[in-house]
């Protein structure tokens, strides 16, 4: 399937749903270029009216953090409760926090 000579590049697909505020990663697909990727994403991921907007990104352009660095990256945040705005009372008018 992933023989690079005979298959199209991989694209990551992000869909914004009707209720959603941001685009969410929904999966990936193969396509020869961006235009085809949008078309394919429409067919593969929005068949049941899931979306109102589509982003496609070449998978090779995504830089991911390494699982080996997980401790160094994420553990220090564990014991710093003061970074969370839990000590404030949120006014009712403020939505989507």
């Amino acid at each position, binding site marked *: 399937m992933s023989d690079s000579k005979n298959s*199209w590049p991989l694209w990551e697909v992000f869909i914004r749903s009707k209720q959603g505020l941001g685009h969410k990663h929904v999966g990936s*697909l*193969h*396509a*020869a270029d961006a*235009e*085809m990727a949008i*078309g*394919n994403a429409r*067919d*593969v991921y929005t*068949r049941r009216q899931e979306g109102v907007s589509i982003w496609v990104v070449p998978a090779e352009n995504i830089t991911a953090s390494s699982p080996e660095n997980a401790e160094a990256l994420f553990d220090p945040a564990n014991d710093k409760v003061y970074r969370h705005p839990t000590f404030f009372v949120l006014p009712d008018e403020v939505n989507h926090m």
Partner: protein
Amino acid sequence: MNKPQHKQALLRLGDDALILGQRLGEWCGHAPALEEDIALTNIALDLIGQTQSYLSLAGSLNEGESQTDDQLAFHRTERDFKNLLLVEQPNGDFGDTIVRQFLFDHFALLRAEHLASQTFDLEAAAIAAKAIKEIRYHADHSSKWVIRLGDGTTESHERVQKSLNELWKFTGEMFTADEIDVAGIESGLLPDLTILKTKWDTAIDAVLKKSTLIRPENGWMQQGGRKGIHTESFGFLLAEMQSLPRTYPDATW
């Protein structure tokens, strides 16, 4: 146009969509890529949806008891189907399927645009108005593939040019008016086929130019679908499509 003619005109719309939808459905699980497999079957489902609407409407115009869309789809015989010969042509390779789709989509889009704007049959207008959005996507999908394959590799170019050359003889039928068309055009239901042809030529030529493909000469055109005279493979298509409802009449989910 009288009631039987009106019914025939609607049957043609329904049959074009039904038979092409059935053909595209044959790709399910066989297309060159998963993404394209889903695209083709999505288009097939759009077409079957249009079929249900047009055939139900045609059935309601039947002399005597009205017929359901299922009765019309599954219990008519070969000579009663009035689809274009183009849409019944076998899938062939992916290029054949794309060219068949491309030639039909642009015709179907122009026809639906007229149907949506006429006032002779408001139900047909409503069906067409809904279908236009679907057909626009179909035409966009098939046109882009014609350009990709035509302007692709030497092999893809040669193969899709061959598909175009072979299917071209079925394009004349779309623009040949018989007595049903004449009555439909007079009443306003159907579009003037001469004007439609000019618009179709423009749309097709624009895509062919980008695709670097050569438009075939208008030679001898094969016809007969509108009279119920079909090509060789049509009987097999019907046999497969109708086998279940004919083996188990009134079967339900």
